[in-house]
């Protein structure tokens, strides 16, 4: 019997040993495909990957990807450059008619995807701050890039929604109840981020690709920010910085080449590689080009009125605008590739380019009363387009007339790029005048998109814009 009791004792001891180890037993390491944030920022390689990740995701984030719910398309509808061929998609029609309801899912997509990118930048900035394992040089570089992207996202949001919640951390418990920050404060933060980015970043192109931002990208966005804020001096200063970097950037003679990958006119582009690389065309190309064989896939046309404002000899009309005789519609043809799997990638999605900087400087100088210099800037654009130069046809043009010409050139140059037309109409106070005449449903409050209703359901501290 004694012998058998030993068995019991052994068994019980074994059991006790096993039970006591339960607590530790159920602890598991992170899986191979996940990396804890603290670990990501312990190492330079992975910290850089976190930045690459943000660039990749910009090709997938709805507000920036050039797809159906991007600012390029939806704000394009809000302006007067593009419209829907069919009236089947009610949500896109709402943008076209400036009658967006707060439930509109496209509107929510813009909002949520931009805040998702902002989260990534905040997460990266926090990670860098708490990190010990990264050299100052890399830290500076990454911080500059992240700050730029954060500022870029806020810039777009603030111009679509006016006051918006300003989040600079990743703490969801705190962030979930934030109310809207006044526009001016958001702008302060944007400028703060951009000035820092400009200071932290160098002027070269990392990895020789224009898909990463550098100090000139920051200058270029600052120029735009100051233009919107009507700070003409700064707008001129910062656009000049970019224009003067002639070894980096130049206006290409052939409009066909502007939207090619790493074109010399590009200040910043987004690569389709971020979508995984299975297809290598831009979303703008895929969405906007009407293929005569596959015309049933088309959904978006250029408004005839836009095609009509070009001079017949304008190279942009020939090169950037197509016409489908089957559907009898004009379409944007800045990008030439509708569908591709080919490498190397031929076209990147353009976010910022040099032509806009000339237009910014022209406008700033015109406001500052420096008309001759303004003329020179606007003629850079007109010359490339192959149309008559203002300095030749009306060198004595007055300030207002010149500003009108600049606005017209902006429309012709920047259509179907990042909602420029919509933003221009709004910031110059002409939205009501221009859109109101075409749209019987226009109301003054339509210049701001509604705060998405789902968002307000979840955060009771978010007020709605007027008119919704």
């Amino acid at each position, binding site marked *: 019997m004694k012998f058998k009791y030993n068995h019991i004792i052994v068994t019980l001891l074994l059991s006790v040993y096993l039970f006591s180890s339960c607590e530790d037993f159920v602890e598991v390491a992170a899986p191979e495909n996940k990396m804890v944030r603290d670990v990501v920022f312990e190492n330079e390689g*992975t910290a850089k990957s976190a930045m690459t990740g943000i660039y990749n995701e910009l090709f997938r984030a709805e507000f920036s990807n050039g797809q159906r719910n991007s600012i390029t398309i939806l704000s394009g509808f809000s302006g007067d450059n593009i419209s829907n061929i069919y009236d089947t998609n009610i949500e896109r029609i709402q943008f076209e008619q400036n009658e967006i309801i707060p439930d509109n899912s496209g509107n929510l997509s813009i909002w949520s995807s931009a805040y998702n990118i902002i989260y990534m930048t905040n997460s990266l900035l926090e990670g860098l701050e708490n990190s010990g394992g990264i050299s100052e040089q890399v830290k500076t570089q990454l911080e500059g890039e992240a700050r730029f992207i954060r500022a870029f996202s806020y810039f777009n949001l603030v111009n679509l929604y006016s006051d918006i919640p300003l989040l600079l951390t990743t703490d969801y418990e705190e962030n979930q109840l934030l109310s809207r920050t006044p526009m001016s404060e958001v702008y302060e933060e944007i400028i703060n981020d951009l000035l820092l980015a400009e200071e932290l970043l160098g002027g070269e192109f990392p990895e020789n690709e224009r898909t990463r931002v550098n100090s000139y990208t920051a200058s270029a966005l600052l120029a735009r920010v100051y233009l919107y804020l009507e700070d003409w001096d700064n707008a001129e200063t910062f656009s000049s910085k970019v224009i003067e970097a002639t070894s980096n950037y130049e206006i290409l003679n052939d409009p066909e080449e502007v939207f090619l990958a790493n074109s010399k006119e590009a200040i910043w582009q987004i690569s389709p590689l971020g979508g995984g690389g299975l297809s290598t065309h831009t979303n703008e190309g895929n969405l906007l080009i009407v293929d005569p064989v596959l015309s049933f896939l088309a959904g978006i046309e250029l408004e005839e009125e836009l095609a009509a404002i070009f001079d017949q000899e304008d190279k942009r009309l020939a090169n950037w605008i197509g016409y489908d005789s089957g559907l009898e519609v004009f379409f944007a043809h800045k990008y030439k590739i509708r569908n591709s799997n080919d490498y190397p990638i031929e076209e990147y999605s353009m976010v910022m380019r040099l032509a806009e900087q000339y237009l910014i400087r022209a406008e700033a100088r015109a406001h500052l009363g420096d008309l001759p210099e303004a003329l020179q800037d606007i003629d850079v654009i007109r010359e490339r387009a192959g149309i008559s130069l203002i300095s030749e046809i009306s060198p004595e043009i007055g300030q207002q007339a010149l500003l009108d010409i600049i606005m017209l050139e902006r429309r012709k140059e920047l259509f179907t790029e990042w909602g420029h037309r919509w933003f221009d109409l709004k910031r110059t106070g002409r939205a009501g005048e221009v859109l109101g005449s075409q749209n019987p449903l226009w109301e003054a409050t339509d210049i701001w998109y509604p705060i998405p209703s789902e968002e307000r359901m979840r*955060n009771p501290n978010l007020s709605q814009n007027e008119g919704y």
Partner: protein
Amino acid sequence: MKNNYSRLKWVALIIIGGILFFLSKTATAATATPLPLQQEISGVVQDQNGLPIPGVTVTVKNTNRGTVTNLDGEYSISAPANGTLVFSYIGFKTVEIPVENNEEISIQLEEDVSALGEVKINAGYYNITQRERTGNISRVTAEEIELQPVVSPIQALQGRMAGVEVTSGGSHPGMAPTIKIRGTNSLREEGNYPLYIIDGVPINSTPVESSSLMSSSGIDPLNNLDVSNIESIEVLKDADATAIYGSRGANGVVLITTKQGRAMGTGLETRIYTGVASVPNRLELLNTEEYLEVRRTAFENDGVEPTESNAFDLLLWDQDRYTDWQDFLFGGTSETTNANITFKGGNENTSFRLGSSYFSQGTVYPGDFDYQKVTGNLNLNHRSKNDKFILALSVNYGVDVNNLVGNVSFNSSISFLPPNAPAIFNEDGSLHWDEWGEAGLDNPFAGYFNRSTTNTNNLISNIGLSYKLLPGLEFKSSLGYTYYNSRELRKQPRRSYNPSDAIYHRSSHLTAIRDSWIIEPQLNYNKSFKDLNLNFLIGATFQENNDFSERFQGDGYASESLIGNIGAAENITNAIRENTEYRYAAIFSRIGLNWDSKYYLNFTGRRDGSSRFGPNNRFANFGAVGTAWIFSEEKFIKKIFPFLSFGKLRGSYGTTGNDQIGDYGYLDAYEATIGPGGLYPTGLANPNYSWEVNKKLEGGLELGIIKDRIRLGTSYYRNRSSNQLVGYPLPHITGFTSVQANLPATVENRGLELEFNSLNIKTESIRWESSINLTIPENELISYPDIEQSSYANTYRVGSPLNISLLYDYTGLDPETGFYSIRDVNDDGSYDYQDRLIVRDQNREYYGGINNNLSFKNFSLQFLWEFVKQDGRLTSFAAGTASNSTELILSELQGESPYQQISQSIASQTAYNRVLNTTFPIRDASYIRLKTLSLSYQFPGNLLKNTGIRNAQFFLHGQNLLTITNYDGMDPERPGFGLGNLRTITGGLEINF
């Protein structure tokens, strides 16, 4: 850290192994005591029909000596001349026969109806008899499922158990069916899988993902089991039965036990069947003439001039062509073949069963697609001479291959193509594009030449060891290991797509591997103190699961024949590699008490830890109490109700949990972006979330009348699942839309279950047995604080079931337009969720099955009717657009119908889409279905004499032969979903040597 645990694992294994080895040594070393004068006795044991019964236990009374009969019913044993032999076998009356110097004792055993209550039921960690169980456990046995030509064993349960709702996954072989045990407990779809345990080893019940046609419901992880090798499937339902599974028992437990070798001697069993399956139903769609008339009417009604772009079917396409698209799509027949061979044998101490099977099933679709599996299984049992040491080994291995079309959807939209639509294929077999293209359409079979091949391997193995340390005290341990591997390759050649679209030859690769091990040591103690019987069990579980998946795509192959040869791809893209590790540990215990086999009381407890939860919340306790009173044993009851042969009242209450959520939700982590070289955060982390808790209450009454010839079991249950784990909704400004968290929301499932059995006729040559099961379930979301603020606001309603639709109020046909109109409740001019205020329950009202077993001489007939009371939706009654509709709408041509004016306008389509979300199309979709029918003929024993054949039978089996319903759709089991169950007829032969 990781090293520590794998070391611990090995230490544990070695210690357990060492102890068991040592114990087995002492076991075999035990010597026999000297015996009194012995004599050899032999004989044959038969049933009333004269058929030998293998596996009958023959013991010498008052000794621990015994044997079992072999496959011919023969035995031999040595016993003292003055001793007594005891013959016992489940389902038969036990017989005692004094030896009295006889050298041959052959007997016929008599069937014992009431002994069915003695059938041992697998309750997981312990066995229990039907009579003594305090919990709710349903059971089906081999006879009911082995002939069913289904891939997954879960599918075979349909209609056979109260409280168990099984819906088939679809018409492709291998798609995972849905099983719900006592309703939907979790707000999350994916949180409702039960726990699957095969021969003691838990199997991940989540369907395996697939990028082929099966992607909608996934691949059933039980596919590689051989259905005909299953001895029994038990489903544990209430707290008393499931609490021992603690945090994983909330949705019930499905225990699958494979067949064991039992008898002495050797034998060979073979069976083969083959048959065909087809889609049993067609929608009544318009023919070309009717269709074109409807279309012309539409343009007339709208006052719109038909043009080539809006009326290609009228102006471009042949006006006389007719294709029955339903026939084209799913008019084929699929062939099914199954073959089994099993070798079994054994002696007094050791028995084995070694089997293999082959199963193949085609599809009803155009093209060469099929599913094939080969399985092998081994069961080995060894018992030491002194009965102290027992070893049971079970190994199930299966290989299958599923050849399917890739990612083209063979969905119902093809059925609704205009009947005069152009051909799909050219004469040379390639896809036809021209005529489709002229109409601005893509060939609906674009993608047809994509081929998806999925190969899976599945190993499920378990060793159970037990040793009797002292009388009544037993040490047991089971060691299980599983390995599942699925590899899928999808080839997408260019010719699958429109040549004008620049698409490359492309391939998609997906590999998924799941492996797991489990160690469960336990101690079992039984002791009787006069009338009080005590059963005590304590044990522990250590489990680890590793899931791994890897996928990528290749494109730019130079030729079609190279597709899939990844080295020849120009680009490799979208590569994703994921793995998860899940660890689980627990201690569990059960104390069972009974007084005089009349009063029963059980306590079950479990303390669980799971790696799915944050460091602060990994452990929780679960427990249950169950009780039963066998009142038919009371003298006063016997006096008052003499016809009552059995009566039991039982009840249980307890808690179980649910840890079915994604792993690592507590980690603030980065993952690789789809684009190259990037990392990004993919979600918010919450280190504080914990289990869903399910409180189960049950009461039951079981009765047996006329010597148990009629048996009735009823139970009422009420399960409340609270602390619901949900993605707690957050505003998008936080970067994401939700974070994993517990909410004080509560879901209640309650219902009544009824099981009725009756032995209607029992004579020498005729036997007729019926059984009925019925479930009346109810489901309700009892509370959900601030549901309006949550992302579930438009899915669920407090006070209503989870499975509801929120509908518009249908207000009839608009007199102006003739179109359907609905009510704008809040008068805001738009129709959205704020106007969808009508709540409609979509759950089954009741369901069940009626099973009959008849035998007459050598014939036997078994058939099961499944019945369901529920609502469904009428579909495809749109008329006027360029797609076909059902003949119902022809009445509108005459002008008198409840349907809207025939029109092709966008306004009419909008109206149609809205009316689909009203009560207007809701119809009764109840049905009664002849789920299975089998007829078999047993060759008479005298015919087989001297052939070496022990037993031979011929059988015919039918599945889904007949459905009685008023529902107009394809299959009322999946209303609105398109294809469902196939009608299958098979025939075969079973021969045992």
